[in-house]
């Protein structure tokens, strides 16, 4: 395969330029990767908060445990529901004292009402679904009040939507900048070999023949740049993690492969565009 050999020769002949291309690709992808990690960790953190979404249905004072058990059995059948806990008055007091340690003496037995605590399935924790389930719970005649932190939940979802939109917009901007930088780097490699390309065409090389080694070179540089970016991102996360109080998450295998494939694609497309533009001019 002359294309493989030519690409290898290009690497060997201009090691500095090749290293520069790979480093540029790596740092462009590193910026995208770091941003991706921030988004990933924000999402993970929001998901943890989301897991705490629950509906607390307070029952009237005269409600028996049997009534609550029957109701909970029925509520468990709702498709949106993951788990239902029955909390008696004593348990409610116990929980309040546990959660509000220094004010534990404020509460006395019988002050807090018993409740049915409903935990929802992942994907059913958005404000609209929560409101719908809460309305159904209000249908039981022994339910006195239903609370689910409506305002807090709406804020959480607004934050999540903002994070998603900002994530897509900034991610796209970073990716575009990466494409431009990578394109310019590969253009340098093409220009460095413009004399060779001109001679190739004069002796009768087809555009495909001229293009192939550059595409291969771009692909390999993209893969190497992607791997380097992945390593840099991992090192950065390792470095930052020790100063953070929460458990951070790194890309899983599938995302890492997507990142490297993205690098390869950037290298390939960058090369194709640069060589194509050059060939159209000569």
């Amino acid at each position, binding site marked *: 395969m*002359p294309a493989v050999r030519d690409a290898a020769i290009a690497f060997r*002949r201009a090691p500095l330029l090749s290293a520069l291309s790979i480093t540029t690709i790596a740092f462009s992808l590193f910026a995208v990767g770091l941003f991706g990690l921030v988004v990933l960790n924000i999402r993970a953190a929001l998901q943890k908060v989301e897991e705490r979404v629950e509906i607390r249905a307070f029952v009237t004072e005269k409600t028996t445990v049997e009534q609550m058990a029957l109701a909970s059995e029925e509520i468990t059948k709702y498709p949106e529901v993951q788990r239902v806990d029955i909390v008696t008055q004593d348990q409610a007091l116990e929980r309040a004292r546990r959660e509000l340690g220094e004010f534990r003496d404020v509460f006395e037995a019988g002050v807090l009402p018993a409740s049915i605590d409903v935990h929802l399935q992942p994907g059913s924790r958005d404000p609209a679904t929560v409101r719908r389930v809460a309305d159904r719970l209000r249908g039981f005649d022994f339910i006195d009040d239903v609370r689910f932190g409506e305002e807090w939940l709406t804020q959480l979802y607004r934050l999540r939507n903002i994070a998603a939109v900002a994530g897509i917009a900034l991610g796209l901007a970073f990716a575009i900048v990466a494409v431009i930088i990578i394109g310019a780097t590969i253009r340098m490699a093409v220009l460095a070999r413009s*004399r*060779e390309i*001109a*001679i*190739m*065409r*004069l*002796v*009768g*090389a*087809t*555009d495909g*023949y001229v293009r192939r080694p550059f595409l291969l070179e771009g692909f390999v540089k993209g893969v190497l740049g992607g791997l380097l970016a992945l390593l840099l991102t991992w090192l950065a996360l390792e470095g930052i993690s020790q100063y953070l109080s929460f458990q951070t998450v790194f890309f899983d295998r599938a995302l890492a492969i997507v990142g490297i494939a993205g690098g390869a694609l950037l290298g390939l497309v960058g090369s194709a565009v640069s060589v194509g533009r050059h060939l159209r001019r000569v």
Partner: protein
Amino acid sequence: MIRFTKVSKLYPRSGLALRDVSFHVAKGEFAFLTGASGAGKSTVLKLIFMEERPTAGEVQVGGFSSYEIRRKEIAQLRRRLGIVFQDFRLLEDRTAEANVAFALEVTGTPRGSIAAKVHRVLAQVGLASKGGAYPRELSGGEQQRVAIARALVNDPVLLVADEPTGNLDERATRGVFQLLREINANGTAVLMATHNLELIRHSDYRTIEMDHGQIVFDSAEAARTAIERMAE
């Protein structure tokens, strides 16, 4: 082999380079293309190997027409031509052998037959012993011989040379010109752009002279006119 029919070429920035140029070079012919700098010689050559397309008129080379040729076919055309320049256009980081082999590799010649072809053509230009040398280790005349070897290795039907002796001393010029004559004697048509009047004067090849983008003298036409006049 080459036919220009009322060819004009207008460059958007520098203006009209050729105006209504018509001439014909036959198979196996040797012709000089001469004229002052800027007369249009290089434009004629670029039109021949289709680096440029005419603004008006038609250029026909080796069965290809500028009217119809597609980008892909230009590569096919150039495989049938040998092109030589004043500045040699060799790859500095490859040996003489590799520079010649390059022309075979890009045209998809089977690897097994490349070495023998390269050796044969380097011997033909008198550089059999210098195949391993890099361009910087060769004299100007030798570098031009490598460039000619590269142009010859695909057995072209036409050799187009743009001032091939422009950078050479007198002795090297004579050597390169002699080589081009031998190539022509073997059946390859040669069109050589030059403003070396000494070379033209001491040979009896056809001369086409250009000035301001037009042909002002063609020795073949002059001979034909003289014969016609004598016949009258």
